[in-house]
């Protein structure tokens, strides 16, 4: 069995309580960190682990921590990004719901490492029931002396606040999240200054994803080198993958980085294969914003080697033949899927979620939504397909935050790999608009 860093005890009855979590070795990282380690030593271990941001960007966490400014007399903040909203992604939801103390323990050791005395967990507002689960876990940890004043007699104080959002995908972008946490609209900030210098309340701030922070207790207990020994190359450790779509076993899986995509889809240990009687058509491997790949390209690299579940292998070939690991939102589609319709639902999502601050994104996402709806409904023309590519190009790289790119990439990739399907909608509007209609042309299925 592969090493489980986050989910080893997740099926243990009562693991959501302090008592059971503690019995299973929980909070030993807090004891070790506060009694035996300096904050600098913890930062060093996290650096050595090579763990990369699990929210989607994949930026090395230790390096992000080391950028934190430390001016005298100014408070520093750690903010956990639990605004999980990228379509296809539900791992943080699962982790917080099932084993809330893991995140709390991670928040304590990470806050200590960064010198923060008040830290926040910003949870998307729709998950209000998870807010309550976390608040209960915080109360339990506080009662046991792991939070509050002078934790374990170390002289270190920490208060944790759980903050609900209000329903806005954009608040998963870290500067929009900080604006939201300050009680404002979630409009991303111009950078620089980066949050590490001027973040929450204009103070130095680190924003990390739930899964990233949840890795820190293991790293403290076992050492950064042990973590780095797992995985392949710069893809160290394990990754939670949210698997959805036309597979036998949808759910959240903690995989060792480095297994093959083929194993992940077909092995019983993971997705258990495509649902009976159907075949793999395409996969969106890292949440709705990453390029969709047809079956042959998600399973194999352009040179024929097997594609692996790592940051590097998934992006091998660039956007021409590759994609990204992103948030690990792995959406599997069989031959019953209309790529045009699926692309339209994604475009509609980004149109709905654009904050409206930058015109390329505000206008462009609206155009892509409208043009795709037109094509899907049999009212498009051939020029519309090129228009979509053109609009996507004009959004990409021209916005304050990455939402613009996230909106542009899925549309551009769907046309890149499935242009025939878009053209068929234009040339065969009558057939294409029948309920459940799917392009009947030659498709490479697996």
């Amino acid at each position, binding site marked *: 069995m592969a090493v489980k860093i986050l989910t080893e005890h997740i099926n243990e009855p009562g693991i959501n309580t302090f008592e059971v979590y503690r019995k299973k070795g929980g909070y030993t990282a807090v004891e070790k960190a506060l009694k035996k380690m300096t904050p600098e030593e913890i930062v060093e271990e996290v650096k050595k682990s090579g763990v990369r941001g699990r929210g989607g960007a994949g930026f090395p966490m230790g390096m992000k921590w080391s950028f934190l400014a430390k001016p005298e007399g100014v408070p520093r903040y750690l903010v956990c990004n639990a605004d999980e909203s990228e379509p296809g992604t539900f791992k943080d939801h699962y982790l917080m719901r099932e084993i809330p103390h893991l995140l709390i323990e991670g928040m304590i050791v990470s806050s200590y490492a960064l010198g923060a005395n008040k830290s926040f967990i910003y949870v998307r507002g729709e998950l209000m029931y998870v807010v309550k689960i976390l608040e209960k876990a915080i109360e339990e940890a506080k009662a046991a002396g792991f939070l509050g004043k002078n934790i374990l007699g170390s002289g270190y104080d920490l208060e944790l606040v759980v903050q609900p959002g209000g*329903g806005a995908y954009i608040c998963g972008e870290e500067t929009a999240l900080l604006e939201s946490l300050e009680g*404002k609209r979630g409009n991303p900030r111009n950078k620089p200054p980066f949050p590490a210098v001027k973040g929450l309340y204009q103070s130095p701030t680190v924003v990390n994803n739930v899964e990233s922070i949840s890795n820190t207790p293991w790293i403290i207990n076992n050492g950064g080198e042990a973590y780095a020994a797992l995985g392949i190359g710069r893809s160290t450790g394990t990754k939670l993958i949210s698997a959805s779509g036309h597979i036998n076993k949808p759910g959240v899986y903690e995989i060792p980085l480095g297994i093959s995509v083929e194993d992940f889809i077909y092995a019983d240990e993971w997705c258990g294969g495509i649902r009976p009687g159907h075949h793999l058509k395409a996969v969106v491997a890292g949440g709705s914003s990453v390029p969709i790949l047809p079956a042959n390209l998600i399973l194999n690299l352009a040179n024929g080697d097997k594609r692996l579940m790592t940051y590097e292998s998934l992006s091998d070939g660039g956007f021409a033949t590759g994609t990204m690991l992103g948030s690990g939102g792995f959406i599997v589609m069989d031959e019953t899927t209309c790529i045009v319709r699926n692309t339209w639902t994604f475009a509609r999502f980004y149109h709905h979620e654009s904050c409206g601050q930058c015109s390329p994104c505000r206008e462009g996402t609206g155009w892509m939504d409208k043009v795709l709806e037109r094509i899907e409904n049999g009212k498009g023309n051939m020029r519309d397909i090129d228009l979509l590519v053109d609009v996507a190009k004009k959004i990409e790289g021209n916005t304050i935050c990455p939402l613009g790119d996230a909106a542009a990439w899925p549309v551009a990739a769907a046309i890149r790999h499935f242009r025939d399907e878009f053209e068929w909608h234009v040339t065969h509007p009558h057939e294409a608009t029948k309920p459940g209609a799917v392009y009947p042309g030659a498709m490479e299925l697996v």
Partner: protein
Amino acid sequence: MSNIAEKIAFTPERFAKAQEIIARYPEGKQKSALLPLLHLAQEQYGWVSEEVMDYVASLLNILPIEVYEVATFYTMFHLEPVGNHVIEYCRTGPCCLMGGEDVYAHLKQKLGIDTGETTPDGKFTLKEVECLAACGWGPVFQIREKYYMNLTNQKVDEIIEELSK
């Protein structure tokens, strides 16, 4: 639904909760309590009227416009009266792959209303929302804090009948 003449104020329990929330943030940063307080207000009144927003502004000592601009930005706040049960139905890709659109059509037929409408008896309001972070358990909808997952036509019938009692 609130009566216009009724004085807007939190119940004593919610007022105490609001004070506890406001005290969480550093001195001078009380505006951070805005989203939590709007949730608390919506929990009490079902929706967030202008009067409710003005009340929240007064609690935080900020301008009403600072509340309006926030309440209108985030999708969870109902700015018009809604039914007893607001069904927020996910319409994003992964749920659609699992047959979410067909189940939604069934739900609309069952309730006899379209997106954005409220049943004549005031029991149900139907809204379409974007991804609820439950893609592996789709199709999915939410009523207040509760997630209803792996929906089928039959399951939808059972839920609606249960809530109609």
